[in-house]
């Protein structure tokens, strides 16, 4: 370990950028969330509209907005589908690859990882077309056996339709992370169990999964944070479906308030609420699992 002034020079670009593009926007959002526009007289002419302190009024309005609560509930349900299904699939695929009992390993690993290279907007676009009854092969197949497939973009299915896009896009990356962790396990840790007659499934559940626990915790955390900020998928699907409202997710509501209604104060308050909730949930989760992840080890 060395000392001196050099570390500050190395850190300077990062600190300047951090201050300008992370710290300042957070502080500014906090400031705006406590402000409002006051209209005096008829609201005409210069000086008729002035910015004044609003107390917690914007927060009260944001939290009691009849469209905010449903969007939070919707994203909660969306997260309950996406995170377990995506990580479950990723873990199963990673364990299957690691067990090495197949000749299609390289092909499957590359194919499942491929969707990570497809931006969420493009993925939503591809799936969006595949959901259209006139294009969907599933509708054709079900139709051939006499079943009328439900419209994936109808109000009762659209949540699953969006969840499927996120699962499709995220499984491969998480699989690679878990697979890398599995490959790092020393073989002798489970060779002994194998000699004692343990099956592949027993070895996977009793030995491998507990060892890669920290990786599972981190993939869970990152997936959770990504889920709370879902924006691109529903925004892209909107032109194909009239069941996705402009406030379908909390972040879409922030966008609408700021740019469609020009109410930046309310948008700022909602942003602060989402940021605080994300932070509390991730921090609470790390406390809950008692993880020493993020410790300043070494």
């Amino acid at each position: 370990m060395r000392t001196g002034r050099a570390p500050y020079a190395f850190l300077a670009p990062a600190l300047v950028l951090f201050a300008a593009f992370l710290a300042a926007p957070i502080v500014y959002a906090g400031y705006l969330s406590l402000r409002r526009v006051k209209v005096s007289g008829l609201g005409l002419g210069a000086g008729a509209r002035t910015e004044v302190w609003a107390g917690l009024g914007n927060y009260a309005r944001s939290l009691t907005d009849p469209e905010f609560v449903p969007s939070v509930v919707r994203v909660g349900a969306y997260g309950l589908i996406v995170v377990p299904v995506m990580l479950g699939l990723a873990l199963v695929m990673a364990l299957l690859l690691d067990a090495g009992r197949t000749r299609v390993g390289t092909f499957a690993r590359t194919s499942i990882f491929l969707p990570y290279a497809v931006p969420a907007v493009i993925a939503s676009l591809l799936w969006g077309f595949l959901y259209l009854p006139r294009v969907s092969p599933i509708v054709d197949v079900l139709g051939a056996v006499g079943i009328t497939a439900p419209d994936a973009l109808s109000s009762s299915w659209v949540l699953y339709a969006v969840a499927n896009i996120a699962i499709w896009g995220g499984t491969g990356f998480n699989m690679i992370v878990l697979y890398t962790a599995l490959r790092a396990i020393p073989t002798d840790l489970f060779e002994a169990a194998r000699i004692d007659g343990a099956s592949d499934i027993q070895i996977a559940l009793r030995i491998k999964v507990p060892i890669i626990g920290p990786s599972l915790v981190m993939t869970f955390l990152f997936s959770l944070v990504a889920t709370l900020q879902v924006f691109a998928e529903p925004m892209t699907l909107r032109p194909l479906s009239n069941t996705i409202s402009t406030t379908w997710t909390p972040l879409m509501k922030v966008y609408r308030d700021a740019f469609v209604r020009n109410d930046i104060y309310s948008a700022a308050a909602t942003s602060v609420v989402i940021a605080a909730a994300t932070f509390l949930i991730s921090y609470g989760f790390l406390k809950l699992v008692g993880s020493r992840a993020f410790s300043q080890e070494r």
Partner: protein
Amino acid sequence: MAVAVLPDTVKPAPAVIRSPRRTSPTATVLLLLGAAYCLLPVLWVVIASTKSASELFNTFTFLPSTHLFDNIAYLTEYRGGLYWRWMVNSALFAGGGAAASTLVSAMAGFALAKYDFRGKSVVFNMVLGGVLMPAVILAVPQYLLLAKVGMTNTYWAVLLPSFISPYGIYLCRIFAAATVPDEVLEAARMDGATDWRAFARVALPMMRSGLVTVFLFQFVAIWNNYMLPFIMLGDDKLFPVTVGLSGLLNQGATQPAMYTSVVTGAFLSIIPLVVLFLTLQRYWRVDLGAGAVKA
């Protein structure tokens, strides 16, 4: 937690040695099902981009046609090649942003891993807070601040916020700690190297494999980003391909002929990233949990 990229010399043992046992049909079937699910939409877009506008909705989904080059020509003609401008913009945002943020992250990570200084734990905790802070929530306040200095609707509005990546700094700190021995830096100092030379000539080459991973992470994150350019940019000549195509899809609602261009554009837009992935696959060995076990 830590992230470890296996050094190139430590190749994982070949599967045959690790499991010299018979293959399992169940495993093969499950993996192929997973692969099929992931390839299906990609296969569809490849086939659909060969269809003419009338065929797109009226022929069997997976029946290819012969109009790929017509579709590409039509897309290229759209507003004087606007689509290709979007692709160049995406490459510029992702390439420039990832290169700059990798350098910024490497310097900061190196300082955090190899020096003792006042305020180190404050800086480190700020980085961790930044990792957990979802970047898209910052997009609206970032827009409002950049609007104050008149920088919205410029390339810089998208590039500058992508130069800082708390996660990249976090990764680089781990790479520097794991791959650059203190003795080597000490030796460089004995030879009279300045701190900067020790970093640039000694530490950077040692961290190379990890830096490629950070670059790829950031490249994909910027290339895939939608909300930041969507909010920052008004002029469609500055759009990256994600924002451009989603705008085209919006037009399709009133001009269904646009759908062919949207599908062809989507197909062409995923080719560069897929090629990048297949060629640099060996760098995707990110172990998010390794350090926590060792800690």
